[in-house]
């Protein structure tokens, strides 16, 4: 799988059956804006495998610019504020909550958890 094919795909929730629809159940949630990896896979001589931790879904924009929306950086005004607004509502969904990755769309499991996209340390 080539990552470029995954970025920008629309993301849908799984419609709930009978139960009260939650905030994110069913419908289009946004687009895949980025993929988050963690270096905790099988160790090799130089580095470890980079495992897909999850996908960052943005409701308003599939692109990302410098990741201002994932850090607390506030300067130079007004760029961070503008870019943070453009990515308002974006969230991280873990691999365990992804039900389907097709050629045209990504579908999440019912009752998935939307986590903060914040990075621990800005880079």
């Amino acid at each position, binding site marked *: *799988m*080539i*990552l*470029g*094919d995954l*970025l920008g795909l629309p993301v849908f929730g799984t419609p709930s059956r009978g139960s009260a629809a939650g905030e994110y159940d069913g419908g289009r949630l946004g687009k895949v*804006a*980025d*993929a*988050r*990896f*963690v*270096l*905790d*896979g*099988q160790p*090799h*001589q*130089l*580095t*470890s*495998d*980079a*495992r*897909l*931790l*999850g996908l*960052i879904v943005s409701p308003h924009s599939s692109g*990302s610019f*410098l*990741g201002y*929306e*994932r850090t*607390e950086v506030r300067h130079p005004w007004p760029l961070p504020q503008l870019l*943070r607004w453009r*990515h*308002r*509502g*974006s*969230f*991280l969904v*873990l*691999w*365990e909550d*992804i*039900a*389907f*990755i*097709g*050629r045209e769309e990504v579908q999440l*499991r019912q009752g998935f*958890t*939307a*986590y*903060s*996209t*914040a*990075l*621990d340390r800005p*880079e």
Partner: protein
Amino acid sequence: MTLNRKPPPPAAGRILDAQLHLMDRQVLDVDAVPVTTVDDLELTDVDPNAEIPPGSPAPVIISLLTGPALGTRIFGGRPPSRRLVRIPWTDVSDVSVVIRLGVSGEHLDAGWVQRWVRDKIIARIPGGDHDPG
């Protein structure tokens, strides 16, 4: 608003966001010689026609991809998979402002155009086969 959600469970290793930390980064070989830039990433396959069974292992990065990406960036799409040159992830030694490899770039397919130009054209120009001075 984006930062106010619940943080994900802590991960054991370093976190890398593909677009922020990997894509378009310059790749240097073990001697700090520029090799290429990262145009895309190749992951282990996920069946696009079937639901992912709960508990399935997550995809991992197999290789960094580089290739003729300029045209497709302007006009859309991406180069065919067979046209992309692969640098195995196991050759990567560090990810920072640049991506460092633990191997020499002299033998990687990613630099064959530069090597060809150097050996077939530059070296035939008088004085082109040695350092100036």
